[in-house]
């Protein structure tokens, strides 16, 4: 009876951890899919699309997560196949410097102009 109890506890704990891990993978998969552009759709993420391309990407992302790939590794894998365009959130590299730095530049320049005007008014 005691052995049976121990077995039951171990079994439940194992089942719970497995369930937790599946839930974690499911959340990670959805997070990744929402950040991948469906390249054959108009303005849709892979998560939102039901196209053949999107469903294949969904399968492959699931497979890569199960193989132990991290979020960044999945993005890297897709970037290698389809380029930076496939990810909604582009990484900072020589092709995206302007994209990332221009808003910051505009913000600084705007702030400087406003400051100048305020000083001038005083």
């Amino acid at each position: 009876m005691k052995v049976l109890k121990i077995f039951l506890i171990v079994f439940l704990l194992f089942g719970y951890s497995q369930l937790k891990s599946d839930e974690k993978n499911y959340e990670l998969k959805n997070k990744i899919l929402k950040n991948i552009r469906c390249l054959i759709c108009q303005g849709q993420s892979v998560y939102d699309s039901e196209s053949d391309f999107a469903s294949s990407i969904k399968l492959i992302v699931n497979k890569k997560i199960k193989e132990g790939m991290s979020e960044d590794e999945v993005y890297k894998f897709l970037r290698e196949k389809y380029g930076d365009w496939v990810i909604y959130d582009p990484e900072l590299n020589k092709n995206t410097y302007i994209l990332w730095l221009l808003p910051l530049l505009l913000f600084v320049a705007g702030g400087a102009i406003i400051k100048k005007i305020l000083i001038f008014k005083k």
Partner: protein
Amino acid sequence: MKNKINLIILLIFLIFCFTIFYKGLDNPNIYTPKTNIQRNLPIFKAKDFITNTNIDSAKVFAKDSYYIVNIWASWCIPCRKEHPLLMELNKNQSIKLVGLNYRDNLNNAMKFINEYGNPYTQILIDKDGTLAIEFGAYGVPETFLIDKNKKIIKKFVGPINKKILEEIKLIVK
């Protein structure tokens, strides 16, 4: 003097912004994939269409030769259009054709091959489309040219035509 410097800086900044946005206008807002690529062949395991046995990618691309990977399906109308050109390409001794049967019914695929001919040295089954993703494909038909160093050097999205055929022949010459 100070005001003049400020004005010049502002002007330079505006010209800079204008140039960026003006250049952006030239870019098409439809995604156009790069056709000249240099990428390693993916490593994969797939099922052979004829024998229905598992096969490694290393075995598929074992020969010291140029390879064409053509993604096709029996339900794909443009694939029928490009098929005679693939049959012609098959006659070229310095190139081997590998077919990737994409999300297809195997009976229909077999009927397609029986009706239009088999230009491929090997056909792999891609039931769920994930193998095509490993190659970086968008759909069907799509064709990849692989050089002797086992690198994907060209990608042709859509059906191949006479011009593409000549381009491939020129590269593998």
